[in-house]
């Protein structure tokens, strides 16, 4: 795969949850290049999270072709997940969860390591770098369950960054964050995009987006309603006008 090739290529993709009569995604075609910042909007149930889980290979593609980072999602799901970071929506850990922050971030490297290999110096350095990026180095030895929701969110983001992903999928990453943390994460995402990481973000918070051209994809009923590019300050109105009002989403 050359640097000019798209990192995400979906061609007429259908996805269905087990037991569902109708597909959740119906005929999605989407091409995303390296270093793009894509905001995915749309009302509840539009298929935004499903789109992220399809790109990450966690949901089966029932029709169409999906190539992520050069891998066919149907045959190489594990390889795709090693290159694609995915921050899950609304997550909270029990106070008794028996893992420290450092251990949780290290887990981000387990997929790359594969079976039977133990984490080495390179893995621990990547963990340290990811924690420093998110300024959670001082929490390294704390149990993850004893952190606030926002701190846990940062730990999970660090877990994804620890494997230096080519693509970062973020599902409501700002939901538990205060304004300062939100600004810091936005700055971090801008840096990642500048370094060539592709960011796809499902969010209803359109303030303080990075100062670059933003690609906006608006979904409705499992289909893409609008796919356009605009300035950061135009994202909220673009999403609203396309039927995915941030207020009711």
């Amino acid at each position, binding site marked *: 795969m050359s640097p000019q090739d798209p990192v995400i290529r979906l061609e007429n993709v259908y996805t269905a949850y087990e037991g569902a009569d109708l597909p959740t995604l119906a005929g999605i075609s989407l091409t995303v290049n390296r270093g793009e910042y894509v905001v995915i909007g749309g009302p509840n149930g539009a298929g935004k999270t499903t789109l992220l889980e399809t790109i990450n290979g966690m949901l089966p593609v029932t029709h169409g072709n999906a190539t992520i980072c050069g891998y066919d999602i149907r045959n190489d799901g594990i390889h795709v997940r090693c290159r694609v970071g995915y921050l899950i929506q609304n997550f909270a850990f029990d106070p008794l969860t028996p893992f420290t922050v450092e251990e949780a971030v290290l887990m981000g490297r387990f997929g790359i390591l594969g079976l039977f290999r133990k984490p080495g110096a390179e893995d621990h350095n990547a963990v340290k770098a990811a924690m420093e990026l998110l300024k959670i180095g001082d929490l390294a030895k704390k149990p993850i369950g004893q952190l606030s929701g926002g701190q846990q969110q940062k730990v*999970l983001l660090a877990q994804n960054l620890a494997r230096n992903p080519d693509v970062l999928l973020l599902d409501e990453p700002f939901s538990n964050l205060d304004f300062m943390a939100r600004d810091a994460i936005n700055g971090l995402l801008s840096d990642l995009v500048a370094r060539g990481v592709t960011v796809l973000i499902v969010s209803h918070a359109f303030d303080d987006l990075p100062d670059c051209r933003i690609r906006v994809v608006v979904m409705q009923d499992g289909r893409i309603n609008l796919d356009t590019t605009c300035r950061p300050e135009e994202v909220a109105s673009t999403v609203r006008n396309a039927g995915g009002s941030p207020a009711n989403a």
Partner: protein
Amino acid sequence: MLEFIIPNTVLCHAVEAMLFASVACAILGVIITQIQISSIGFTMAHAAFAGAAVGMFFSVNSTLSAVIAGIIVAFLIGPMSDRARISPDTALGLLFGISMAVAIFFIAYMQTLGMGFSAMGLLFGDVISLYSHEIWMLAGISLVAVLFVIVMYKEITGIIFNRRIAESIGIRVKPVYYATLFIIAFTVALSLPLIGGLLIYVWLVTPAAIALQFCSRLSAMFVVAPVVAAIVSISGAVAGLEYSFPVAPLTAVFFSVVFLVSVALSPKRRISFRKS
């Protein structure tokens, strides 16, 4: 194996069997309680129990029939429930009900045929009637459980952290999860003649629950749980044989007492009144 330490053969066999069964059950118990699949352990215990009852009735090796029943249930809980669109809860409810019905039917029928004594062994275990090959098999499954955790430690920690996140970061969740179920099935089936179908759940859950009172890290739980289980089980075997008490029920009582004491002493329930 331990005759050089314990010359009394009966006591030696009882201690060996209790040691190996408790180590295997406690290690797997940490996984069971942390993934929160205690109901799976419970269902497998009863399935193995039903298998043993059927085997005993038809004069087939009851350990073998317990292993077969445990594996069938592991297969039904894992791959089959994933494919059959049945929620794990429903699958477990169905399997538990069927297992209990089969076990109770055959045990009750054996009582009417005058085979009651052997059936009681299935319910509460019988530590002194084990053959040496059964003890060797327990030693084997104990070793398998230890090696499984050592070799698959990072995958197991990922699954315990969260199955969905583990899958999203590229961990091969399903093979490791299914392997866990099959090892649980073997352990439960092989421990059944020793501990009994009604009590094996104590061995699977209580040591891990005791370890959780003192350990905040998973790695520590994998050490503390089997050590506590081994000490309590050996104490139960020695006390039971010395004072002619039924060994497995006595050990289960010991486990419960240790659990209550550990809850009372747990640092996790301490409230700090420090100001800085």
